[in-house]
């Protein structure tokens, strides 16, 4: 890994290595199956899960429908509570705002609590270019950062690493970033956690500026919400003097009552817990307690364009629980890096091409990174019909044409003509049956080539069904 998603190859190329990496496959299969089984149990505990899911979907849809109104209400409330709201249309603008805020404080370091939005905009790299070091404090994000790696899962960014690999990373890299790993560090999870705790504590106590994301923003009071498992987020949110939160505009919800729905849906779907260990809420600033200065950067970065797409907009309902990743057979084999974005798995396959557009090869390949098996839709706590959006985006990719799609379009048109003429189809089937002894089992030809690399082609029958029917059942008088 080079620590950047830029220049990633298209999905089918990117997976070539990961599907053959037996260690990666074993790590991922073990982790995703454990989480998915636990999730199924946690969800089964609630009789009203279906209604909760429907409520979550409705709240998100209603909010997105009136997004402008709720965002303005949020801005008013955050400002009234002593915060400052910044609007960023794209990644460059958001990064600029954050870098300027940090520089205005005269600081060259920030601590961060895991935030998908800042991964999306490449904030760490942008800050580094301005001479500012960003320290990730979420344990898994820390592992990824120390390993000069990229996150490969929404909830468990280092899911692709096992504990002995993590120990090696700690021993190798911790010293370069701050407090070194303890001597003779084992790969016992408790020892690894203690090493991370000692390393991070120094960062928390020294930092003057923190950067966070948020899971939800409550419009009625201007309150931001982060749910997490480790408490490292809460350290970032409370200890530094200045807090900068970078949040996608789709994260707003109208009221605290609505929050009640999501605080049930999210933990059960993501970590399979009834309630997550730490839920932090913050509203502007409070004298003598917590940060003295609070900035909210509201990030668009392709969300308004996504909202304009009638079918695709449902992707904005996503609460980043990662349940879809954990059940996805494609994600399980491909690994998260192959998706070329901080949003891997089924949700990434529909969110990334919408946020970034489908011009690049990797983005155009993402809607096809699914067998449309529907497992993702089934587990999604806000009922995003991911297969529907995938097919919808495939249409846009096919319309755009480009590499691979010109030949494909010609083949589809030819097939369409044959399928429009049953007599031609019957003649073709008959010919295929008659020549069946001559068919090779491996074919280098385009289209069939990849098929026969791992599978035999089926043997053609002696006659197609429609000929059998004609002989045996038609005309009906003969019966």
């Amino acid at each position, binding site marked *: 890994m080079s620590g950047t998603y830029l220049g990633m190859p298209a999905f089918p190329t990117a997976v070539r290595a990961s599907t053959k990496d037996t260690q990666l496959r074993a790590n991922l299969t073990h982790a995703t199956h454990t989480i998915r089984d636990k999730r199924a149990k946690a969800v089964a505990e609630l009789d009203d899960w279906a209604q909760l899911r429907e409520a979550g979907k409705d709240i998100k849809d209603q909010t997105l429908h009136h997004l402008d109104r709720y965002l303005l209400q949020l801005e008013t409330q955050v400002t009234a509570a002593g915060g400052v709201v910044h609007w960023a249309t794209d990644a460059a603008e958001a990064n600029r705002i954050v870098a300027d805020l940090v520089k205005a404080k005269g600081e060259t370091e920030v601590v961060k609590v895991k935030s998908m939005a800042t991964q999306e905009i490449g904030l760490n790299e942008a800050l580094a270019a301005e001479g500012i070091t960003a320290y990730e404090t979420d344990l898994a994000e820390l592992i990824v950062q120390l390993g000069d790696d990229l996150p490969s899962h929404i909830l468990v960014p280092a899911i692709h690493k096992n504990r002995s690999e993590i120990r090696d990373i700690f021993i190798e890299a911790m010293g370069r970033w701050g407090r070194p790993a303890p001597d003779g560090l084992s790969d016992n999870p408790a020892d690894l956690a203690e090493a991370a705790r000692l390393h991070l504590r120094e960062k928390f106590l020294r930092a003057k500026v923190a950067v966070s994301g948020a899971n939800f923003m409550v419009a009625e009071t201007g309150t931001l919400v982060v749910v997490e498992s480790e408490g490292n987020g809460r350290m970032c949110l409370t200890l530094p003097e200045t807090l900068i939160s970078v949040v996608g505009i789709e994260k707003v919800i109208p009221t605290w009552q609505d929050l009640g729905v999501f605080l049930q849906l999210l933990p059960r779907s993501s970590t399979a817990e009834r309630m997550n260990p730490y839920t932090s809420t913050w509203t502007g600033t409070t004298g003598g307690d917590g940060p003295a200065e609070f900035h909210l950067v509201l990030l668009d970065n392709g969300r308004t364009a996504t909202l304009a797409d009638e079918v695709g907009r449902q992707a904005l309902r996503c609460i980043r629980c990662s349940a879809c990743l954990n059940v996805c057979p494609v994600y399980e084999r491909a690994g998260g890096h192959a998706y070329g974005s901080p949003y891997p798995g089924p949700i990434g396959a529909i969110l990334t091409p919408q946020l970034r557009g489908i011009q690049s090869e990797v983005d155009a390949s993402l809607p096809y990174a699914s*067998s449309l*098996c529907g497992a993702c839709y089934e587990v999604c706590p806000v009922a995003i019909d991911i297969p529907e959006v995938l*097919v919808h*985006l495939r249409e846009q990719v096919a319309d755009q044409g480009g590499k691979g799609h010109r030949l494909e379009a010609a083949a*589809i048109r030819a097939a369409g003509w044959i399928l429009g003429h049953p007599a031609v189809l019957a003649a073709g089937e008959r010919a295929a049956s008659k020549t069946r002894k001559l068919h090779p089992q491996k074919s280098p030809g385009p289209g069939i080539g990849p098929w026969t690399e*791992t*599978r035999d082609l089926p043997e053609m029958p002696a006659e197609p069904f*429609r000929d059998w029917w004609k002989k045996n059942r*038609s005309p009906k008088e003969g019966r």
Partner: protein
Amino acid sequence: MRVALFATCVNDAVYPTTAIATVTLLERLGIEVDFPAEQTCCGQPQYNTGYRRETEPLVRRMGRAFAGYDYVVSPSGSCVAMVRDNYLRIGTKARTEGRGSELTEVAESLTPRTVELTEFLVDVLGVTDVGAYYPHTVTYHPSCHGLRTLGLGDRPRRLLEAVKGLELVELPGADECCGFGGTFAVKNPDVSAAMGTDKIRNAVSTGAEVLCGADNSCLMHLGGMLRRQDSPIRPLHIAEILATTQAEAHT
């Protein structure tokens, strides 16, 4: 009751024995089946690959071919799911794009009448014991569209359990996709093969003689891998098991 067989293009061209078995089975249960020769393909491969407008002539053809029948029965969950899950979407989009409401009318007419074979047997005919005899160990792969889009539930299982002589064994990870996914198998061959390999490993681990399914496209993918690997288990469509009686048991 006027019943039409929608054989599907794959069964027509490659697996005629499945379509013949469907006819045999339905006739044995007293149903007069017709095969409208105008039928070709439901348009699923085109639609799922992103060629929605190219499926419109096929939707119209399906409407014409199956007009006037009470039920359109098909031994393929994914083709039935294409009709029931997507035809209305295709119609609605065509209408918004100014191509009239004909496709919507076709979709509204076909959707409630188009049923998968095991649905037809259990829900419409109300039978689970179809008088079949098949003295073999069988494991069942439910296939994603049948399982999730159509919600076939335990219907195929109940039918198989009622077959005399048949021993049904549990397939580990049954609800996971086999990796076929139409053009997915060609566009993402590495992931598709990895998924298929795991499915086959699970199937072989059951010790069953037969890997049964209700979708020949999944079985074509898995069967192709089984043959390449010289695996002992052979794929077979559920219709061919249900159509076999004691008198004609030859396998």
